[in-house]
């Protein structure tokens, strides 16, 4: 089922949590709502679920007005950040809850409920834990119970609020992969909220980048990473170095490189801001003097790429560069060594407030 969000605005007293937000989620899609805390992403998710009322705007499920329906009729599976499992019920009873509270004429028989619950528990690989209480499970197991519980009502839409936020890095990675394959199997229209850009980029079909109560950009992970639409998007998606620069003759001089400037900015001229990804910075040690003189301040070679922090001779904050291990070996850098730095690629924005 597709979800259509039209001009949703939400105010809490004087505070605007969502400002005229519109978004369409296609059937079977897995969409990430990505943004810093306070950007409005969780509020949007809660409005779609019906846990929060929008001040204005509409939400359509499969073309029908969802706001007119009660939560019960919306058939939304909601997975909470802190699981929100019923602490006094066993895993089995937790998952069965949504079936047990159905009106009598729609409620399946006891045996059928049990069968369906066990099938779901097998799906989330927790069939051996049916008789345990939530407190007896690990964080990752609890999250899977929460997911099974949400799936038990056969939802038309699955909503997940920071589903992996409270888990440690390793479990998070496993669950992420597992959720992706589960989604591919079930083809359930799903939205999840996260503040972790890596999670959004790795897991989602489409990423919705939110900031300051509005949607900044919507696109495929590759799209938003390679072509950030705004200065905020550039800073939020991945590590980035920021340089002040000037536009002259349609080009910006950024850290020793001449970067072509997008058309709308060309005529403007004057001061601008450039963003350069750490892996788009080149380091030269040889006798050739290209780029800006800089000094190596810090080296970290653990992991597949080496991180190098440098200070430019003409001042400014530290700059971060990334090179492959082989390249690092060839460069043979030492702390305190003078080098030259050049931007291979950069994205230039008008001198905005950001």
């Amino acid at each position, binding site marked *: 089922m597709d979800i259509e969000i039209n001009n949703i605005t939400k105010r809490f007293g004087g505070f605007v949590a969502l400002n005229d937000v519109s978004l369409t989620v296609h059937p079977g899609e897995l969409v990430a709502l990505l943004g810093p805390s306070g950007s409005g992403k969780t509020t949007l998710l809660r409005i779609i*679920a*019906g*846990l929060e009322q929008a001040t204005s705007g509409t939400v359509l499920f499969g073309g029908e007005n969802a706001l007119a329906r009660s*939560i*019960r009729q919306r058939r*939304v*599976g*909601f997975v*909470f950040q*802190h699981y*929100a*499992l*019923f*602490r*006094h019920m066993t895993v089995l009873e937790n998952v069965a*809850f*949504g079936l047990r*509270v*159905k009106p009598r004429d729609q409620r399946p028989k006891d045996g059928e409920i049990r069968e369906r619950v066990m099938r779901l528990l097998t799906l989330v690989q927790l069939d051996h834990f049916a008789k345990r*209480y*939530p*407190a*007896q499970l690990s964080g990752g197991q609890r999250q899977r119970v*929460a997911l099974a*519980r*949400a799936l*038990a*009502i056969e939802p038309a839409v699955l909503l997940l609020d920071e589903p992996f936020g409270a888990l440690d890095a390793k479990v998070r990675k496993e669950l992420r992969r597992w959720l992706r394959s589960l989604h591919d199997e079930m083809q359930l229209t799903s939205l999840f909220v996260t503040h972790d850009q890596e999670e959004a980029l790795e897991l989602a079909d489409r990423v919705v980048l939110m900031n300051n109560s509005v949607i900044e950009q919507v696109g495929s992970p590759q799209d938003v990473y390679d072509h950030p639409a705004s200065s905020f998007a550039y800073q939020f998606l991945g590590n980035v170095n920021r340089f002040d620069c000037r536009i002259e003759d349609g080009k910006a001089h950024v850290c020793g490189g001449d970067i072509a400037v997008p058309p709308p900015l060309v005529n403007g001229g004057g001061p601008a801001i450039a963003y350069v990804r750490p892996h788009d910075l080149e380091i030269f040690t040889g006798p050739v003097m290209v780029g800006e003189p800089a000094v190596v301040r810090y080296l970290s070679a653990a992991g597949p790429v080496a991180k190098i922090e440098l200070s430019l001779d003409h001042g400014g904050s530290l700059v971060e560069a990334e090179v492959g291990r082989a390249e690092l070996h060839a460069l043979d850098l030492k702390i305190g060594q003078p080098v030259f730095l050049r931007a291979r690629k950069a994205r230039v924005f008008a001198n905005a407030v950001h």
Partner: protein
Amino acid sequence: MAAPAAADAKNRLAAQEPLWLRLLLTALAIGFLILIVALPLAAVFGEAFRQGVGAYFASFDDVDVLSAIELTLLVAAIAVPVNTIFGVIGSWAIAKFEFVGKSLLVTLIDLPFSVSPVVAGLVYVLVFGVHGWFGPWLVANDIQIIFAVPGLVLATMFVTFPFVARELIPLMEEQGNEEEEAAISLGASGWQTFWRVTLPNIKWGLLYGVLLCNARAMGEFGAVSVVSGHIRGETNTMPLYVEILYNEYNFVAAFAVASLLAMLALVTLVLKKIIEWRFGGSSAIG
């Protein structure tokens, strides 16, 4: 090696007082409790049985004593359930919602703890007494509140209102809204959510509050004394009747009735311990 060992010794010294001091403090605490709590409690039973078991039970062979017991049970039977229901509603509202006047409501719930019970009784006389605000209207309609059972119930409810709410508010605040939201998102109605999720989560705290509320409701003296009028066989509760018997030098009967109240306290204490034990157990798995 030497340094950690030295630090260890130092830690032990810092954490542990010398033996003589520990013994002295323990003895002081136990002695104090015996003097202030255990001895008087024993004295109640001692005095009650001073003239033998026969005299003890004969004390209850009095219509006025029996009516005092009955009245106490009646008042508790009304005040405790009413306070339980309103306590749950009040705590629910305070713990789970934000609204204007919330802090005022919290203060109001605490008020009976800080107001002298005598004042509580006087307030009801002022409002419902013959010369009170509603007095003329009540007299004209032949409704008696002060010096009658309704007044006793009202005064008791006032004094015992905070017990349930005070127990539940921190508990519900700690548990938050998420489980209720989960229940609703799974299709439960408000009523189903309350019975299946909220109530099971607070049941031990609630029981604990009800128990304390009941103990106080049956034992309340001050507020009830003001609105009672001390009509024998009609408006005397057990604590009030103990005083009357005592003032009449009927010590055996006074202490016999008092022993019932003391037993109520002991039973409450035991139940409280059991609940604490269950409470601890259930929070360990839930």
